[in-house]
């Protein structure tokens, strides 16, 4: 149904309709409701709860962290509790909980203004293992898929998250850099390291990570088996730089309750899926948290006990023959190594074009993005990288 309305939308929009940015005048209340995101981890690994505040819709985007709150996980009989400590601003962590799988747990929060918030109690839920994280060529690109199942037919509601990381290199390695005069104006080009004129690996090899912002939930409620087959994750466009060298994707999978599934689904409908002609209208979305101090105060979020399962795969350029990645960098330009020329040169110097008397009489310049990989990624190798 989703797909149909998306398609109808596309057809309308493309055929006759028109869509424009629009900013209505809103009479916005200063909301500042507490937003709670995270889950109580029943498996191995930390429990992380993120506390923020909602903000006005107009004005610049900013994330307002809720700091110095008291956060703990409580069991139903309130006999045990696990404190979470603020490891960075607004992020509260407990490295490892030990939960009793027959008990029920909730989150308890007390903010600095003295207000208390709790979630509903949640049973301890386990997440089935990921069967595979598969991929195949589709329309010249690569489509990745999640596959999983639950033999006991108990899970039914799934949340998927993924992160992509890929390695890339600069088109032109560099051994040179621009030196400024005393006034800070580019003056001449010299070796990066005059004692050792090698190409600088720090600007050459980098990694880029992408975390999608869409909510990916799936239910097997309508299937005869509790099995997820070929749930589409990332799609790598044909000839994308992501697969220029080596690409990696990690899948994180969570089992959800039906209520949490509906909450996320509604959030997605409210925020990602609007704008077609036959869309459901947005509506209030109520999670499982409430304010004990003021019953009328809204709290946004849904916290329950779950477990995270992960799987990571790598795809190398060699596995996709004829990938055809092209960095689209222009040819280098030779520029005399004189202050007047250097001052107006575009991009960054790479290597010597003509040594001449100084050994650096004429140098090559190339666009910055083709030289310095840190402009697009980070040059520290991720811990999981081979």
């Amino acid at each position, binding site marked *: *149904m989703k*797909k*149909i309305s998306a*398609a109808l939308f*596309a*057809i309308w929009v*493309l*055929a*006759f*309709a*028109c*869509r*424009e*940015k*629009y900013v*209505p005048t*809103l009479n916005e*209340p200063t*909301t500042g*409701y507490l*937003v709670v995101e995270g889950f109580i981890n029943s498996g191995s690994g930390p429990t992380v709860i993120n506390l*923020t*505040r*909602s*903000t*006005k*819709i107009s004005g610049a*985007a900013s*994330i307002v962290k809720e700091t110095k709150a008291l956060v703990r996980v409580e069991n139903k009989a309130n006999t045990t509790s696990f404190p979470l400590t603020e490891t960075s601003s607004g992020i509260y962590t407990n490295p490892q909980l030990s939960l009793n799988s027959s008990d029920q747990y909730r989150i308890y929060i007390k903010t600095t203004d003295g207000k208390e918030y709790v979630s509903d109690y949640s049973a301890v839920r386990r997440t089935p293992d990921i069967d595979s994280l598969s991929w195949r060529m589709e329309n010249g690109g690569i489509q990745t898929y999640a596959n999983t199942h639950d033999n006991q037919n108990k899970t039914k509601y799934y949340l998927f998250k993924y992160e992509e990381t890929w390695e890339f290199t600069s088109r032109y390695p560099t051994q040179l850099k621009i030196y400024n005069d005393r006034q800070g104006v580019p003056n001449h080009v010299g070796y990066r390291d005059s004692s050792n004129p090698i190409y600088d690996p720090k600007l050459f090899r980098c990694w880029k990570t992408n975390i*999608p*912002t869409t*909510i990916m939930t799936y239910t097997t409620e*309508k*299937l*005869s088996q509790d*099995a997820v*087959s*070929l749930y589409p994750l990332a799609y790598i466009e044909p000839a994308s730089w992501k697969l220029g060298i080596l690409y990696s994707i990690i899948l994180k999978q969570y089992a959800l309750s039906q209520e949490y599934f*509906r909450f996320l*689904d*509604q*959030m997605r*409908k*409210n*925020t*990602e899926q*609007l*704008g077609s*002609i*036959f*869309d*459901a*209208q*947005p*509506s*209030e*979305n*109520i999670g499982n948290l409430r304010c004990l101090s003021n019953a009328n105060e809204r709290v*946004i*979020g849904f916290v329950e006990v779950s477990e995270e399962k992960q799987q990571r795969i790598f795809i190398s350029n060699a596995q996709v023959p004829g990938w055809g990645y092209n960095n689209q960098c222009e040819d280098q330009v030779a520029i005399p190594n004189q202050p007047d020329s250097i001052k107006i040169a575009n991009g960054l110097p790479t290597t010597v074009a003509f040594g001449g008397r100084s050994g650096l009489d004429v140098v090559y310049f190339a666009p910055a993005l083709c030289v310095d990989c840190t402009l697009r990624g980070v040059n520290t190798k991720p811990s999981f990288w081979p």
Partner: protein
Amino acid sequence: MFSFNAVAQTDTLGPPVSGEYRNITAEQFLLSIEKTTGYRIYFNKPDIDSIHIDLQANNEPLLKLLGRAFAGTGMRFAAGTNREVFLTKGSAINTTLADELFDDLFSKSKKPITASTVNNADSITEENKIAKASLENKLYEIGLRNKGPLTGKATIAGYLHDAKTGEPVIGASVMIEGSRTGVVSDQYGFYSITVPKGRNIINIQSMGIRDTRRQLMVYNDGRMNIDLQPQVISLKNVTVSSERTGLIRGMQMGVQKIDIKSIKQVPVAFGEADVLRVVMTMPGVKTVGEASTGLNVRGGSADQNLILFNDATIFNPSHFFGLFSAFNPEVVKDIQLYKSGIPAKYGGRLSSVLEVNSREGNKKNITGSAGIGLLTSRINIEGPLAKEKTSFIFGARTTYANWLLNLLPNEYKNSRAAFYDMNFNIAHQMGKKDNLYFTAYLSSDRFNLNNDTSYHYGNHNLSVKWKHEFNNKWYTVLSGGYDAYNYDISSERNPSNAYQLAFDINQYYLKLHVNYFASSKHMFEFGLNNQLYKLHPGDYTPLGNKSLIKPDRIPAEQALESALYFGDKFTVTPDFSIEGAIRYAAFNYLGPATVNLYQPGIPKTENNITGTANYNSGSFVKTYHGPEIRATARYVINQNLSLKAGFNTQRQFIHMLSNTAAIAPTDIWKLSDPNIKPQYGTQASFGIYRNFKSNTIETSVEFYYKSMSDYLDYKSGAVLVLNHHIETDVLSTKGKAYGVELLIRKTTGKLNGWFSYTFSRVLLQMNDSTQGVPVNKGNWYPANYDKPHDFTLVGNLRISHRFSISMNTTYSTGRPITLPIGRYFYAGAERTLYSDRNQYRIPDYFRTDFSMNIEGNHKVHQLLHNSFTIGVYNLTATKNPYSVYYTTENGVINGYKLSIFGSIIPYINYNVRF
């Protein structure tokens, strides 16, 4: 029969008269002669007011004497065989034909001697036929002549037909000249009027025919069919002339009637004459936007309209996802929308009844028409199957919108869309008192998305109607039929979840309606309706053997809806009349069914299901019943001014489930059941009607107040498709709607059209915490289609007989929407926070359309009649927002407004009649 001008044929000039008549009025003179001769003399008093008589008679034959007495006054007279004389001014009466006018029941009299008089024309002399009165200047005799004085009243009944095509003329007003008595011909062209015995003149007016009159001599009850001359297209003005006085004198209020000619003049997107779009220009009718053919009548939702195509219920009246309405304009004759004062024979919907009437088919010749537009082509053929007795009409329409889809980017290039609809009607006359009507309708829409998801929906309707007249006062209509709507969606892209989802609703009905024209004061009608519903609310099945889809079927639902009604049109005085009816409606939800039981007093949620109850096939699971009242009163203050008031109550047992603003193709219908109550509505209305400039300008102001209960709204995040416990996702709300509707309509002249303004509100409330969290804290909130101000101007200017232009301008307040009140960061992105429903509005709507109609030449006898329509939709290229929404893209919130037609849409249409 005698005529003074045709003395040659007379063998007597009447009895001899003797006497002295000195300086007396003509009236006194005539009365005195009546006494002495025993003859009856008919005259029109004003005609002879100024004539004085001063003469003496001595055994002078009556007619000779009269000739002498009125010499030089311009008075003429004619004598009948039955001791009677008709005195008229100007030309003498043609007294031929009287014999033919008798209904065979009454007629035993001998064939009259024909007399040639001024204006005498061909007469209908074929034996054994109900006569057709087609001449204005003839005197038609009705009923068996009797000797006694003509006192008391008689009833005349018969059919009005179009002289050219033989089709019935519906909604024509039949009025007695000089009195305020009048009736309107019904959907069969049948009329029945009670008149004082003696001389009468009746005036007949209707849309599309020439105003005309018939002269009658009424002795007793009798039959008279009247053939009416159509107005030649485009030569004279076309719209409503009949309703001129109708609006003032008619009982109906809150009723709009538009004929196809007017419909075709209104410019629309792609030039496809669209019945429903024109309805939307009438006061009190709104729609959520251009992609929707859903009507919101006086604050009602789209499912509260009963849309009838020749008595068949059309569940989804749109094609191509709301771009076109599902009615072929070549077959439609006219439409009638009841916003209040809904006739007692109709029920089952809260807001309105929209009758779409098709033509009956030409009874005389095979004719047809065809049209070609940018997106659709249409054709219709009609003609007699048996001369004068049986006619058929067939219409079909199809689309070729694929070229439009080919303009889409690659991603959607393989998409395909198609629709068609077909109509087939037969009207058959069995003898003089029985008519049989057959209607079939079929529509189908198909859409395929990139060879992936296919999508189909369609309407199927069949109906048979038998009308029998017992006599002039009684007739009955028995009708039965089958209405169905279904859709299915399927996708085979991913073999492991290839599926098909199907829905259908079926309705079988049997209706009996009886009309009884009791007297000139009372017209009774009563009847019985029965409908059996059978729904398959959702059937989800795997496609292919690799599919893991688990079949899921929501059990079929069935119910019986019955109603018994009785009504009386009571004319208290010619100026004051009341129409009252009571309709008792009952609804039985039938087994087999499994009904979820909930803990009472707390919101219905899945967790509160305490068990289920099973019912066997045919058992009555739940019955809802109650009376409905329909009442209207009219008071005529003078010829140009009247007041009307109405009160009606309605019950609705079937609900459309949709939480989108527009009618979506995936909307499903739901029957009331033990957990979902029927909707109930009450409306009170009041109207003032005033005509100006000899009835060429009609104005009306209507006020209404409506309340609704158990109107369905949805919980946040409601799931409507394949939901086994739909009652957990809906809320029953209260609603109130009120408004004022102003209409100014100029019906004649080179420039005609209408202007309408509506102020209206519709508000809902859900403050019952036993149902769930109150919506908007239990306060009243506007419904999705609450658009307080609405102006429409429709104008047509006839520049020459072959060229006319039309313009249409509309403005309305933007509809309410829910906008976010804040934002927050969640799941890696900024999210919008929604709160109270419908607290904001999209920007106001404004649009102007323009079209030109170019007719070919007007020679009546040519093989083909051509016409072109060239037009522009949205002349000002206004980007009218259909919706405003916020969406999270790449982690950032953006606000957008979406316009359905953001630019000028030109179109051209070619039509040909043959």
